[in-house]
């Protein structure tokens, strides 16, 4: 059995398998199926400073090997998380990470300051894929300057490590990654969902209430692999890879491209035990390839 322990920004993970925000609730929803303590960590659903109702129904379109969602960050806000959710999560023997979103820099900063007080949360994942309402709705993560601004301000406000989650809907994800690294990010996670659209030919209407949405699932893995590889060749900080990981082989591919840890997302909808199967599968792969430590495959792609 190989060593699966992985360290990112000084935080030790018992294995490289985490869950993607918005696909795993607050973890407790999966307790009937798996032992949450087996996970390297889990990232709870996207949280914003103020509560959000999210978008109108319909929010889901199925696509070949994937799905498009338009949930719109429905959540009860940071204070609700601190008061009602955190007490239920703080005793798990795994890393519970909060995914923080915002629609202006001030909201990110205030949210991050509030999360400083939670001792058992070792780091936050900053979702910068959201539109900046004060910059005409332009996504924070789509311009190096906007990305740099929000990350550097949150960096000053938040005391613990910061993982910045990147959107693939940009011309050069490497440029964005370099910008957030320069602004003080301890790690980057990628990719967020791919901007997409579904149409009903019979009704001649869009499927989603918001017309466009974010695509995830097996279909986006090739895009995710390309992004992880490009970012791996652009920055020094560790990468958490996600996007279309359905099984251990997908996870291994992501790690070969440079991801030190991975997040399992949409696969949780298809198989609520996907995470633990991926942990077992990575272990089996490492044994089969004579690896003593999971770090041996990170970025080991033979190009």
């Amino acid at each position, binding site marked *: 059995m190989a060593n699966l322990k992985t360290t990112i920004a000084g935080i030790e993970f018992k294995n490289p398998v985490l869950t993607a925000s*918005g*696909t*795993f*609730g607050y973890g407790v*929803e*999966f307790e*009937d*199926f798996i032992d949450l303590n087996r996970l390297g960590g889990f990232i709870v*659903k996207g949280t914003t400073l103020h509560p959000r*109702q*999210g978008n*109108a*129904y*319909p*929010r*889901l379109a*199925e*696509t*070949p*090997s*994937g*799905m498009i*969602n338009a*949930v719109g960050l*429905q959540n009860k806000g940071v204070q609700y998380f601190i008061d009602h959710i955190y007490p239920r999560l703080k005793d798990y023997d795994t890393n519970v990470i909060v995914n923080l979103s915002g629609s202006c820099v001030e909201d990110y900063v205030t949210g991050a300051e509030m999360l400083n007080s939670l001792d058992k949360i070792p780091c936050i994942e900053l979702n910068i894929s959201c539109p900046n309402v004060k910059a005409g709705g332009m996504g924070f993560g789509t311009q190096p300057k906007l990305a740099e601004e929000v990350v550097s301000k949150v960096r000053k406000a938040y005391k613990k490590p910061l993982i910045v989650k990147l959107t693939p809907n940009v011309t050069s994800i490497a440029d964005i990654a370099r910008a957030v690294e320069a602004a003080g990010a301890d790690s980057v996670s990628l990719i967020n969902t791919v901007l997409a659209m579904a149409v009903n030919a019979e009704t001649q209407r869009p499927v989603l209430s918001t017309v466009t949405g974010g695509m995830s*699932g*097996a279909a986006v893995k090739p895009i995710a692999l390309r992004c992880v590889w490009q970012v791996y060749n652009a920055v020094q900080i560790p990468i958490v890879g996600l996007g279309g990981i359905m099984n251990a082989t997908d996870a291994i591919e992501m790690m070969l491209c440079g991801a030190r840890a991975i997040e399992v997302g*949409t696969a*949780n*909808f*298809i*198989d*609520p*035990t996907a995470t633990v199967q991926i942990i077992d599968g990575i272990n089996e792969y490492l044994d089969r390839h004579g690896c003593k430590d999971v770090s041996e495959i990170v970025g080991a792609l033979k190009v």
Partner: protein
Amino acid sequence: MKKTIADFKVVSNTTLTERLFLMKLTPADGSVIAEAKPGQFVEVRVDGEPKVFLRRPISIHRIDRENNHLWLLVQKAGNGTNRLSELCAGDKLNIVYPLGNGYLLEGRRVLLVGGGVGIAPLLETGAVLKQMGSEVTYLLGARSAKDLVELDEYRKIGEVLVTTEDGSVIDGLDCQKGFVTNHTSFTSGRYDAVRVCGPGPMMKAVAKTVALWPEQKEKSHYCEVSLENKMACGLGVCLCCVEDTKDGHKCVCSDGPVFDINDLKW
């Protein structure tokens, strides 16, 4: 109720009408089917159809404890359910269950109103209510008499009243032309609880009528309906299947699928 993921084996898969089919399943490992409440549902993984990615939510039609069979009454509605209709005895399928909240089971005289494939969860619901000592009346609506399936099963549980849109009749049943809300037995003063499952417009019509009955005003959970918004996870985490209720967005999969009509913005 503890949720589980398990492989089931198809015992039989029977075509009932052009669109409806009945699958009888049993756990592949021979274990006993998990406890489930009437009105709960299962999420079935559809294998061997590349166009299908997500599981399909299907309500529990009946749990035959004697034979350890789980019955699913399914309507062909697209690639996923079409594929399920092709499965043969001995084929396996993977199921996550039981999901959702189920109906509140109470009342001495209970009316179960079903339309189309929405009659599915009402078989188990009626069976359990009967066991609890309730007197069950079914009011089943269909386009035509030939679309009504498994009437013998429903008749074992309680009186079956029928409405058909085209006026076609079934021998031995009180069969009236129109929608379920047009049936002469669908009136105030007869029932202690009403449980509904069917197409949206039908459930809304039932809810609108029942809302005028004095008993609905006096009693919470007098009338419950079962929704079927499009969903992915079935576990309350993807937040895709939300219904806009008086208390904000609620997940049909985990807060429902059964809702008190008082809580809906209908």
